[in-house]
């Protein structure tokens, strides 16, 4: 059974949305803690982050949101954020408070594997990563590896799917850690390729878009992804 990870931006509706995602078949929920200047995010998640910040979703409010989400779902919950928030909050304090609020692990999009080795987190690897870095990331990651499948440009799909297959192959040769593919999985082609090669997929941007239409829409969307995954 492949793993389905759904990303949601922290906000007032997140506990209900997370519950709907889990009902639809999500195995893990990532919870975005918004940052004002998110280098790894495209326009959709950036806008969601701006909106969340304007609604007051600062670190303490995000931790509170995490705790309320934890009350409603049993699946692993993983905050995903940027180093700026941890710098300001204190790395150890952030980790402790997040765990206390129900976080299973943590993803920091701009903290490379060789930085802050003491902070246990899910590591990301990219098509540009060297074998040496993939091996290091696999050794220290917290449970699974987040494979960045695309780099986000339109028109680069052929090249990127080639890069993704190569990345999975290289990673498999180096580690037995489960690999979940994310970044840019929104089209059926990407999802299909990812289902075939990886142990799971992370759906972010599309989930954030669908979540704007409420929990029912999100549940249906996740259910449709789940059905695709069973087919493959």
């Amino acid at each position, binding site marked *: 059974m492949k793993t389905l990870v759904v990303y949601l931006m922290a906000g007032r509706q997140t506990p209900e949305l997370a519950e709907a995602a889990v009902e639809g078949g999500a195995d893990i929920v990532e919870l975005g803690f918004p940052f004002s*200047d998110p280098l*790894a995010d495209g326009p959709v998640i950036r806008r969601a982050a701006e909106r969340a910040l304007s609604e007051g979703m*600062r670190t303490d409010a995000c931790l509170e949101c995490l705790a309320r989400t934890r009350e409603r779902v049993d699946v692993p919950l993983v905050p995903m954020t940027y180093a*700026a928030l941890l710098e*300001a909050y204190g790395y150890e304090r952030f980790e402790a408070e997040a765990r206390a609020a129900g976080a299973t692990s943590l993803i920091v999009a701009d903290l490379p594997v060789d930085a802050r080795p003491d902070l246990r987190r899910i590591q990301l690897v990219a098509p540009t990563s*060297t074998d040496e870095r993939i091996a290091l*990331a696999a050794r220290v990651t917290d449970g699974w590896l987040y494979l*960045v499948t695309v*780099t986000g440009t339109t028109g680069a799909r052929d090249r990127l799917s080639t890069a993704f297959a190569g990345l999975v192959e290289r990673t498999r040769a180096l580690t037995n850690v489960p690999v979940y593919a994310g970044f840019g999985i929104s089209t059926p082609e990407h999802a299909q390729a990812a289902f075939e090669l990886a142990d799971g997929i992370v759906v972010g941007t599309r989930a954030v878009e669908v979540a704007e239409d409420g929990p029912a829409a999100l549940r249906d969307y996740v259910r449709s992804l789940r059905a695709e995954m069973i087919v493959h």
Partner: protein
Amino acid sequence: MTVGLYGTYGGRYVPETLIPALDELEAGWDKAREDPAFQAALDRLLGTYGGRPTPLTLAERFAPGKRLYLKREDLLHTGAHKLNNTLGQALLAQRLGKGRIVAETGAGQHGVATATVCARFGFECVVYMGAEDMERQRPNVERMNLLGAEVRPVEFGTQTLREATSEAIRDWIANVETTHYLIGSCVGPHPYPEIVRELQAVIGGEARAQILEAEGRLPEIALACVGGGSNAIGLFAGFVDDSEVRLVGVEAHDAASLGDGRPGVLHGARSSLLADEDGQILDAHSVAAGLDYPGVGPEHAFLRDSGRAEYVNATDDEARDAFERLARTEGIIPALEPAHALARVAELDAELVLLCLSGRGDKDL
């Protein structure tokens, strides 16, 4: 974080996708700087294309009672110190085999300097510029277009240098294999702050020799405006080991990331930033687009903390007054950015002052 640190500042806070490119850049840079052929090619370009050395001008009417020397980076080709950096990084990009350049620009000076070297080297060139900055620095947009660069407006967030920088980095993430990111200031992830400092150090190196020649002694104060801080770090590089020379940076009053900032992470590095207690970045404001940035190079944060350099500020009005006064008293129209440094000259407790006139003011008319 263990690479590229200035005290606790600097480092590499970027998505994994960029790390191999930063490693490649660092290796290429380390090799280039040891290679006499690279330095010779750069020196030749700086001289025959850029117009170096730039002169020192004594500004007696602007600063009566003092001996104020202006380091005339406004006379460099394209009208600002930015070309020192873009020529060096263009040579580096060529060595790395990259044929496409992306850059950010605030005032447009770095964008023009980038578009210029791209035309000269035959590189494809994309410059990200905040929509608000495109409006207020229109002549530079036209210059970039004429030079063959594609200027892409950035229409979200603050629509200034801050968002333009994020967008240039995102472009680099998406095109990292073919593209060199030609950053315009001593900011960003390691090794950029070091590369830009070293390429701008020609300002301080020349100025030191020139003022010794003119006055037979070192200046009491070396003074420069600070946005990201590249002209200042280049000037300071010539004097940082001369403990008797005070290093003074002048920030825009409402963009004082050193004066009013706190430690945080922005655009790939830890530095002193305008940020709230949660680490969210705050808006900066300045009439000078080149200073309108909530961050600053990590080395400046380190120089501030160590006490080696001091940082003050000037308001928009003070800068505008100094802008006009230099024009009327010396026949030199400065950019609004160095006008901030000019605004602080009169009250300095020093007689012999060296000021980096980082650019000319045609863009600000």
